[in-house]
């Protein structure tokens, strides 16, 4: 059997750091900004979606996040990490959204919520080829359970947990986003997971 892996025949240069790209677009080259959007679009949309629970709105707030990056790029201090900065903007926008929603809960109804995607289980089986039929039958409630449990956490706890679990951010990065200490982040993550596992163990939602 021959190996399909061949040695690289050319030396590849490392992609430019985020901070270099910021400098580039601040100097007037839009391609730097474009590359940053390519790197972060999916992360920012997913983060906001998990934070506020509304996918369509998450895409709108992600747009706003990038617009702010674009407008305020000139003020970016390169001694900080770009990833921390953009997540700070996304976190602030998510917090504002949740605050506004809590003031006017009537403004948030099912039309703005995520509608169940398709009423065909086999359609789901086809689109998620790694799942087995019995997993398809439970995937709906698994998703619903997690979303419900997460929605019960305090906003800061939930967002910190999402940053750790899905974005793999370090404690110091999360602390920087929230302008707090790593000790507070440790405490939030402990409480968030404890509450979550309590809800699971109590079978309130699972």
């Amino acid at each position, binding site marked *: 059997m021959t190996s399909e892996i061949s040695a690289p025949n050319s030396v590849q240069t490392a992609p430019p750091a985020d901070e270099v790209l910021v400098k580039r*677009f601040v100097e*007037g080259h*839009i*391609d730097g900004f*474009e590359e940053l*959007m*390519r790197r972060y*679009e*999916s992360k920012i*949309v997913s983060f906001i979606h*998990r934070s506020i629970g509304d996918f369509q709105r998450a*895409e709108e707030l*992600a*747009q706003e996040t*990038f*617009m702010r990056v674009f*407008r305020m790029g000139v003020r970016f201090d390169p001694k900080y990490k770009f990833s921390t900065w953009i997540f700070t903007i996304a976190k602030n926008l998510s917090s504002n959204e949740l605050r506004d929603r809590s003031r006017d809960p009537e403004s948030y109804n*099912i*039309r703005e*919520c*995520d*509608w*169940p*995607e*398709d*009423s*065909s*289980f*086999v*359609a789901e*089986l*086809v*689109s998620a*080829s790694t799942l*087995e*039929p019995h997993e398809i*039958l*439970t995937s*709906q*409630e698994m*998703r619903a359970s*997690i979303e*419900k449990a*997460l929605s019960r956490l305090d906003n800061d706890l939930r967002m910190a*947990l999402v940053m750790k*679990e*899905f974005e793999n951010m370090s*404690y110091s990065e999360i602390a920087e986003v929230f302008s707090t200490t790593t*000790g507070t982040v*440790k*405490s939030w*993550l*402990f409480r968030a*997971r*404890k509450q*979550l*596992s*309590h809800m699971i*163990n109590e079978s309130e*939602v699972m």
Partner: protein
Amino acid sequence: MDCLLIEPHLAAYVDGELDAASVERVELHLKDCRRCREAVRDMRLASAVLTQWHTHHPSGSVSEKVLERIRREGILPGDGVAELEACEARAAGRRRRVRFVGGVVAVAAALLVTIVLYRFASAPAEPQGPAAVRSVAELGRSAESLRSIDEAAAAHVAIDSAVARAWSERRPNVESIVTLEVASTLALGAKDSAGAGELGAVLRELSRSAGPRAAVSAAGWGSGFLSTSAAYADETKPVPPVMTGSPEPKTLLDEGVSLEALGDLESAVRKYQTAAADRVLSLRANILQANVEMKLGRADSALEALDRAFALTRPETFYREVVENLRARAKESVELKKQISDMQAKLAKAEHDFDVLSDVGGLQVKAGDVKGAEATYDRMVRTAGPGREREALRARLVRAWCRRELNRLGEAFEEFDKLVVEAKELYPEVSVLAHFERAKTLDLKGRAAQALDDYRALALGAVLTPGAFAAVQFQVGCLLAQIDRPAESAETFRSLDRPGLRDQPFARAALALARDSSAPAR
């Protein structure tokens, strides 16, 4: 050491954020402390559960919209306009529709075009429902055949008053909504953007008191027409689609839709191609043709039809968004085809490689090539030997689903029906899935009463998870509304309002519809 001193470090311990000395201290404590060991286990459990939490895949349109805003707001630094244009072109190329099923709203809206047209074409000669609604439907049909702007405008007025009557009875249904859609299209064709906007608003309002299925359609169409009419009203250029006077094209479009519904996709394509020669129908004909071409695995032809459709739309309109999303999907399909042919080349060497076959089938579905996928799953069914019973059943389920997507409803029904029985003993979950799809196929065949019975049999006879139960009851409620039994429909929806059920996605949707339908109309 005291638990109170250790506890604050447990999260960091689980996340590997402690230094070596602290790790040692925590582990020493854990050896003797059951409570903290359980806390660590619980945190790991929470993390494990979260890995199951998948979100939607972003539509990929965020970058494009941001670049558009930058251009619109004129905030580009330096001399970057040319660069921005290059970026926009790249962003458009990157836009991807990742999930074939469900997903992007605008694509669903495009499918709605098919559904609504299908319902219109296949509606019974004598529509069901109260008199006012019937008259709306009749007016809609006759208005559609009108060929002059004046006649269309007059019909629009007549439709409007009939709508008012239907509204006063608060009994709108799919029929009246289809009629309103036709009327709105006519109004747009007649350059009556204000009229189309009004009708759009009526559609949206109707969604508040319509049955659930109609509500979803009405809300979508209403918003679409409102935004389209607003964009048309803003435009200074003349509106391109103008009535031509030929009675034939509408018939051709209807025939195409009917052929598609009968599963004769090749003939449907030919009808749409002919219908596309008519300026009024061209946009819809091209969209419908592209949908069919995709299913037949001809993404290149779909792309050509969509380019023609694109040229007929205006920026920021409902149809523009529909066409753009379909174009992104077609482009993705073209790229996926290369991957598929590479894998098919592998298959030529290893005829019975189940895993490769499964990957090819999955990619074909993702590319929208339902016909190709059907052939692949068929091959899997035929080549599955002993020990592959489970895989064979799975492949049969997907093959039947493909056949239904290709509108071969009879064949799909037959396969689902067999699977319900054959899988019952050893693979009950496959049997449940097949039962659900069998009922859905009956619904698509227009046999609402039988579908209702089949769903109810599933709810009563099988052990279902809460999510599956909610999905079944959602269908039952929708069908009851469809056959004009609104009270039972609302009761079915409300029955999902109980612990363990009410948070399931379909229960949430059902309860929202129940709330909407019980809300007083304006």
